[in-house]
């Protein structure tokens, strides 16, 4: 057993403290240490985007960071968005537009797009395509995801006005 490092991290507004090995990836930390299984682990080398979380306000790959690097930082995962009874507008739009089939990639798409839509309330289709170019989906062919993003952006900006 190698040296353990004390990590204090805020995830979805709640503070957690754990002792971890330096080599533990942030993605594994969220799933195995905190039990937040919404963050999915696909390729583990930064290609697929399934593990995307929002780190200090910016979407990043949680498989390309160590848990120890999150010490003192703020993280949002898919669990922060909504519940089955009260979904986030983006989740509702994914549901309505059939923007998922197997659902494996969905948490990564949601976190990437939530962050994107918060910063760009009225995006063009081109901007949406660029925003999700780091996320792979093998079911939908992407068109329905883009439709969902458009619908969510309309509803989210309508709600704010």
């Amino acid at each position, binding site marked *: 057993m190698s040296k353990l490092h004390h990590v204090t991290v805020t995830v979805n507004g709640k503070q957690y403290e754990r002792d971890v090995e330096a080599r533990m990836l942030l993605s594994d930390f969220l799933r195995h240490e905190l039990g937040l299984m919404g963050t999915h682990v696909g390729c583990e080398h930064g290609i697929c985007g399934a593990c995307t979380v929002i780190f200090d306000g910016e979407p990043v790959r949680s498989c390309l960071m160590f848990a120890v*690097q999150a010490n003192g930082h703020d993280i949002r995962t898919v669990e922060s968005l909504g519940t089955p009874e009260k979904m986030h507008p983006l989740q509702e739009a994914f549901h309505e537009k059939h923007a998922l089939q197997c659902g494996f990639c969905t948490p990564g798409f949601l976190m990437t797009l939530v962050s994107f839509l918060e910063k760009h309330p009225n995006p063009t289709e081109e901007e949406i395509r660029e925003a999700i170019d*780091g996320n792979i989906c093998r079911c939908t062919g992407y068109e329905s995801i883009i439709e969902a993003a458009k619908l969510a952006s309309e509803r989210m900006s309508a709600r704010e006005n």
Partner: protein
Amino acid sequence: MKPVNFDYYAPTSVDEALDNLAELGYNGKVLAGGQSLIPTLNFRMARPAALVDLNNIPELAYIKPTSDGGLAIGTMTRDSKVEYNPEVAKRFPLLPEVMKFIAHPQIRNRGTFGGAIAHADPAGQLPAVSVAMNATMRLRRKGQERTVTADEFIIGPFMTVLEPDEMLAEVILPPNPPRTGSSYKQVSRQKGGYAQAAVISVVTLDDRNRCKDVRMVLMSVGERPILSQKAREILMGQEASNEAFRAVAEAAATQEADPATDLHATADYRRSLVRVLVVRSLTEAFDRAKRGG
């Protein structure tokens, strides 16, 4: 798919980091953004005994003007900060243009400007761009500092002149003279994927539209970024012309590019790409220089 154990150091100042590196010597490895290093750790292709994490050193992340009109970029400046910085866009429009081709938004939020250059991936955009822009690298080790040009800094695939206890601290971009135009052209199989070949051109014209300076770099077609001597020989003093650009393209593709065959493309195909991309890149760079840059 999980890294082997390593000792972890999280210095909060440059001096502390240099102390760590000096103590660790060959056992230590700098962790910058980690967007290339952590995948190689996950695959266990790299097994450093210790990592020195620079992410807790705010003094290494900055973009500031230099007295001559250029910019100094701290090694830990995130790619996305460079991508969207107005001072960068004003002085060096090449940089935001190239950034869009570097992996994906999530990677650019974490990846760093200096880290990518120090990684010296032959298919990496920033090592090649730093050569095209004639950047200067400020290297630091405990009690010592030196500067080298980007072309001197990169010596082979994933190899630089950095000593084991030394780090790239800052990248200094010299100002572009008036009437300088630049262009980046690449071909890759998909958005954000590795370029099968790419060409970067930075061209300065005199007041009669003749080439006063040209730095053209071939990327992803050799063991390191290739600064074309042929472009200089053929184009200096010349106006833009398709014949001249084609002559450069032929010379670069046959005499300067040194591509390998792999899963993504054959060497011959890569040479063909160089022929096409050289003409496209030079045409655009000359055109932009004519219009003032």
